[in-house]
């Protein structure tokens, strides 16, 4: 009898311990992630300026947000940046992964070389590329010194092209990481299938197009999720690379949100922009994740 209760207690404890251990982090998550999301959403409907305040103003902050030329520019920039960044990173990452997967010599050395930029923070990447791209001291200057004086590359100083320099720096930083993800995916493909396909006379091109790349679907999913969220939250790279300039030409929603909330004393508008950012991400990610994860194995 006594043994039975002891056993009972033990099983019950075993059932409870995981829940107990997880409870604090769940509580913390609830408050500091979801709680503050709700708080931000609430602030976006208030007249908060320098500190949170609780006078409700309805949709006024949203109305003002969409009147601001800087905000439309930030959205446009994000669209350009995110689209190019995700596509180029995936293409370069996949190409590098396929090339590295050809059982070449020195792979062990090459892989980390491509992967290392990811170890840098975006601030370092931004500063280094700022110097490289600066026509006065960087690539253009060097090529002029080497005698190619007609060479001209000053995108970082031109309002219409500066956003593409952000893409360049971001792609440099992340494609190695995407490569590693695809490489892992490639290594996970069953060799038997490939051999069977080769026996049936599939060309290399067809092999990749019809068998290997479709099987990389989970890797594509992870790459997309990671790249998309990096794109939307990218802040430090812009700050270090262009400081939002020339003028406001490379302003992104994240830099917009920070400047309105913390330097312009317009917390209400800042909160509204944060809510719009969240909605945008949700609008893209939720259907995608839903479609991908629902799929039966």
């Amino acid at each position, binding site marked *: 009898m006594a043994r039975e209760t002891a056993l009972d207690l033990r099983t019950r404890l075993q059932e409870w311990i995981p829940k107990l251990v997880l409870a604090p982090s769940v509580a913390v998550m609830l408050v500091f992630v979801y709680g503050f999301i709700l708080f931000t959403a609430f602030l976006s409907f208030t007249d908060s300026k320098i500190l949170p305040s609780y006078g409700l103003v309805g949709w006024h902050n949203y109305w003002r947000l969409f009147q601001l*030329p800087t905000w439309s520019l930030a959205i446009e920039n994000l669209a350009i940046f995110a689209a190019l960044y995700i596509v180029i990173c995936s293409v370069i990452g996949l190409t590098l992964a396929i090339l590295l997967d050809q059982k070449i010599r020195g792979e062990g050395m090459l892989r980390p070389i491509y992967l290392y930029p990811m170890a840098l923070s975006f601030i370092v990447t931004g500063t280094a590329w700022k110097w490289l791209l600066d026509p006065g001291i960087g690539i253009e200057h060097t090529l002029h010194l080497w005698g190619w004086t007609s060479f001209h590359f000053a995108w970082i100083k031109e309002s219409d092209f500066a956003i593409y320099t952000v893409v360049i720096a971001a792609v440099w930083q992340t494609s190695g990481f995407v490569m590693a993800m695809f490489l892992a995916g490639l290594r996970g493909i069953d060799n038997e299938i490939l051999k069977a396909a080769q026996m049936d006379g599939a060309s290399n091109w067809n092999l990749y197009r019809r068998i290997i790349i479709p099987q990389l679907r989970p890797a594509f999913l992870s790459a997309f999720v990671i790249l998309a969220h990096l794109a939307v939250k990218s802040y430090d790279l812009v700050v270090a690379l262009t400081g939002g300039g020339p003028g*406001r030409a490379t302003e992104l929603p994240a830099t917009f949100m920070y400047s309105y909330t913390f330097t312009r004393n317009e917390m209400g508008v800042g909160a509204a922009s944060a809510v719009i950012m969240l909605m945008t991400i949700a609008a893209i990610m939720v259907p995608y994740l839903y479609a991908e994860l629902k799929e039966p194995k």
Partner: protein
Amino acid sequence: MRGYLGKTLTIAAMLAMSAGIARADGSVEVLHWWTSGGEAAALNVLKQDLQKEGIGWKDMPVAGGGGEQAMTVLRARVTAGDPPTAVQMLGYDIQDWAKQGVLANLDDIAAKDGWDKVVPAALQKFSKYDGHWIAVPVDVHSTNWVWANKKLLDSLGIAQPKTWDDFVAALQKVKDAGKIPLAMGGQPWQEATMFDGVVLSVGGPDFYKKAFIDLDPAALGGPQMVEAFKRMDQLKGFVDPNFSGRDWNLATAMVIKGDAAFQMMGDWAKGEFLRANMKPGVDFMCFRTPGTDGDVTFNSDQFVMFKVGKDQQAAQNAMAEAVMSPSFQSSFNVVKGSVPARTDVPDTAFDDCGKMAMAQLKQANDKGTLLGSMAHGHANPAAVKNAIYDVVTANFNGDYDAERAAKELVKAVALAQ
């Protein structure tokens, strides 16, 4: 007996002294962003003055040029109910914080030391809220300055330009000689700093006041504003193609090295010239933006005093008094490159540019042409200031022409209010 009395007196004096220390006991916690070499040295003067009075100094530096990071830290501290004793702050931020009801009242010391009489009225507008003293001004910088490399100008036979047309002609002459006429850093605040002087040169103090302080839409979108933007377009033609994103001190270095002739920048630029061992009037020149003689657009660093516990108030008051003492105002501003925030400080310790600035400050104060700098948050609140930045930088980077910029300015300011 005498010895005995002497001893007693000594002991009494010692007791009194220790009591004095005990009364002033406590320390001040100061949040600021003066972390660069010269600034830190200047602040050290205050720290030592206070230490002499037995008041400890808890330094809380948060680096970052315009104090943006410092303000973020401050928000967190105040929200948590634990504000620092004093915080370095600029312009309308002070009033915004005063509205939150978290600042101390310094009226007693102000009355005792007669601050009302010695601090320029335009500064008092920021140091007081609702008629009560809440902050102590440390320095006065002004923004309508032009800095020039004298050797370069002499070699090209250019005299100090007196009018705007002179100035443009001088710039053209430098350009023809193959040098960079105007050293410039393309960051919104630097463009706005230049805009301060340009607007003042177009319309004078009355127009400046109407546009930037009263925010009158007719002035903001009027023909004079269009003219001001046209002058900005003119100036744009004289900067090097590589200007955007450059820090202000690198632009100053271009003038110091003689690569560029002029820079339009606030008087913090003077420190760079002095550090390069250049002498005012001999190696470099300082003069007001042509067409703005007698007018001063200022910005002033102030220490804002926050409401603290009773035990901290003595130390806080002592700090406020120390900041306002003429000797500190002199020694601090000599190091910092600005001018004292009170008009009764002797100018003997200052260099020629400093002496000139002090005389002009006094003159502008008397004439009522001492105006808050728009670019540095002393003409309108942060939201409006940044809205103006947006338009000025869009114009300077070629997105808006002068007419469109004036129109957008009216819209942007209305939206930010």
